[in-house]
């Protein structure tokens, strides 16, 4: 019931006629399932299509840039999982908080960051989202409550509980969406965080993006119970078809209302990543190409929205136009990022600490000292 009324709020914002879509029924644990009939309209679906296609092209561009050696180190791509993030963002506001692990490129953009700043960060330029100091795994956007971007999987889960604690401490009507994968779901600190969130009824939504592989290990080989939505035990859980943006949006809206009223909830998003774990993983040694292709043809999130739009009167040519615009936006951003500047050496020691200590730092060689110039504007 809650899900339906929340969805109606979104639909009523636009003028186009309501479309009712039946999504895969939710599997639930210790809670009553929301209705699986989701209301939407063409305008909203167009927004989803555009954002998801943007994410898709962005990640493909990152793939090409990595192979061309403009991007180095670790690079974890999100293509295939776009519906999860798009659905989440549709159900919350920028005043709610999101934290995730290293598969974080799309969160930057969905939280209002520019594609240029993302690409620049991946290429290690000073115009990057974290000034070239963080890299692929450390993208943050404080202004719009995106808390990163964490390299050690699972460590973001207690952080997310802390952000939810702060929302409650300050009396804010906001939730913290803490995202992690099926691999990280086996971390002890997740259960520590669940326990505390449950004890104090924190407005925390724990989202397990189950793409079925923790790097090269299939979920059934790593988890005694792969029913991640039940593993919060006393914390209610809900399993969602993560390849369907409408299913996700509806469920997250339901979860937000629950979290604000009652406390934490676990969500399992059944999703899939087309790429390997990262760019160093071909992604085919532990799964078959048939499986990947089957996902693409049967469950691709963008194709699903496209089909909905076409059956609801949108012209295929309009969609092609959007495709072209988005592709151009991404390509332009990549080119602009390539022209960016390398961060100056002095940034190595700038603002190691928040406040100046009046302390110098020793360099590599003896007699080398660096007095970091404290720059109070170095924060957002």
């Amino acid at each position, binding site marked *: 019931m809650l899900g339906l009324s929340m969805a109606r709020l979104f639909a009523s914002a636009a003028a186009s006629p309501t479309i009712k879509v039946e999504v895969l029924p939710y599997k639930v644990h210790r809670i009553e399932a929301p209705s699986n009939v989701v209301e939407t309209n063409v305008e909203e679906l167009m927004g989803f299509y555009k954002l998801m296609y943007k994410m898709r092209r962005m990640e493909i561009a990152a793939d090409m840039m990595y192979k061309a050696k403009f991007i180095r180190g670790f690079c974890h791509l999100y293509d295939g999982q776009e519906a999860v993030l798009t659905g989440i963002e549709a159900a919350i506001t920028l005043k709610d908080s999101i934290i995730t692990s290293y598969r974080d490129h799309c969160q930057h953009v969905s939280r209002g960051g520019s594609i240029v700043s993302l690409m620049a960060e991946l290429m290690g330029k000073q115009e990057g989202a974290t000034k070239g100091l963080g890299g692929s795994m450390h993208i943050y956007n404080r202004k719009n409550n995106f808390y990163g971007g964490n390299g050690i999987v699972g*460590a973001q889960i207690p952080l*997310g509980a802390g*952000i939810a604690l*702060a929302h409650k401490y300050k009396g804010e009507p906001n939730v913290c969406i803490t995202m992690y994968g099926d691999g990280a779901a086996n971390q002890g600190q997740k259960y*520590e965080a669940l*326990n*505390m969130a449950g004890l104090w009824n924190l407005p925390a939504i724990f989202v397990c993006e189950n793409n079925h592989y923790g790097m090269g290990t299939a979920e059934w080989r790593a988890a005694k119970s792969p029913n991640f939505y039940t593993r919060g035990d006393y914390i209610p859980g809900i399993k969602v078809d993560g390849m369907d943006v409408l299913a996700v949006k509806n469920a997250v809206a339901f979860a937000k209302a629950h979290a604000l009223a009652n406390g934490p909830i676990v969500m399992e998003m059944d999703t899939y990543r087309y790429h390997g774990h990262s760019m160093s993983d071909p992604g085919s040694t532990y799964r078959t190409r048939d499986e990947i292709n089957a996902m693409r043809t049967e469950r691709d999130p963008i194709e699903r929205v496209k089909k909905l739009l076409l059956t609801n009167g949108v012209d295929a040519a309009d969609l092609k136009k959007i495709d072209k615009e988005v592709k151009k936006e991404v390509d332009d951003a990549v080119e602009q990022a390539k022209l960016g500047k390398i961060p100056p050496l002095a940034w190595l020691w700038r603002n190691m600490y928040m406040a100046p200590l009046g*302390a110098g730092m020793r360099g590599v060689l003896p007699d080398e000292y660096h007095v970091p110039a404290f720059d109070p504007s170095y924060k957002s």
Partner: protein
Amino acid sequence: MLASRNTRASGARVAAAPAQRAILAARSGRRASVAAQAQKKEIMMWEALREAIDEEMERDPTVCVMGEDVGHYGGSYKCTLGLYKKYGDMRVLDTPICENGFMGMGVGAAMTGLRPIVEGMNMGFLLLAFNQISNNCGMLHYTSGGQFKTPLVIRGPGGVGRQLGAEHSQRLESYFQSIPGVQLVACSTVKNSKALLKAAIRSDNPIIFFEHVLLYNVKGEAGDKDDVACLERAEVVREGTDVVIFTYSRMRYVVMQAVNELVKQGYNPEVVDLISLKPFDMETIAKSVKKTRKVIIVEECMKTGGIGASLSAVIHESLFNELDHEVVRLSSQDVPTAYAYELEAATIVQSSQVVDAVHRIVGATAPVRA
């Protein structure tokens, strides 16, 4: 963890070891003169720390405390005694036993603008939270390109106690010193503990604040609510000329006990309490090194990889020509701290060893003075 609760339950250190009794005896003269002065009250270090936390929580509503048994139990060393009644359960938060979890929670809360004081019941337990302290706390300001600050204070007792066993006698400053982005501060007296903790809470940097299990009942005067120390300044405990002894935390008392003996023998050592373990106060340190030209470091860290090892390297590398003698460093032995009283005493530095070190570096007899 049960061990530390028992030590608190036994109350003040009635059965003090010989070394500590000697310290108290040595200070009785000073205490008499203090009593003769103005009516400033003498309190114990745990009370001073509690005052600091209370005053800062009253001053700033974003300051909060989280840790095991900090609330209803009152803190295993009483540093938060009764505060939950004044500020409520959310601001003095009793956490379950999950250091990794609640340290991460503290960091997450700090990222949003709160100023948590996260207590490790014993510093050694924070090894479980190392990832959160290193990656998500220390490095965050840097890797986020300056977007986030983590104004956390991570505090708790560490060091070798009274037969607490190997796992409850650790010196975490050894491990934490390499983390880029954190500040390490060690308090030692009632006065500096309160003033430094207040400064640490007000600082926007993540501060790891080292207290010592055996110093909570040390008595002294504390400053008032505006007494806020500088976190990066060392304290010159005693001015001297023959040699400078750098030390910190409980070893300060071991050194002063040795100094009392040395003064009787005619020596004139300078004693500097480092206070700021990272970064070192090189201004004060260099001044003392240049004045005395002989350096002894007395630390409770083990010989390998401790604060003293770093300080020794810094002094040799940057002040080599100011030295008449290589730095003599007294550290604990590279062994797990034994339970038996005598073996535990042999693990750490004793005051007689400090006296011997001064004899070795200055000379078997005190220098003749004009």
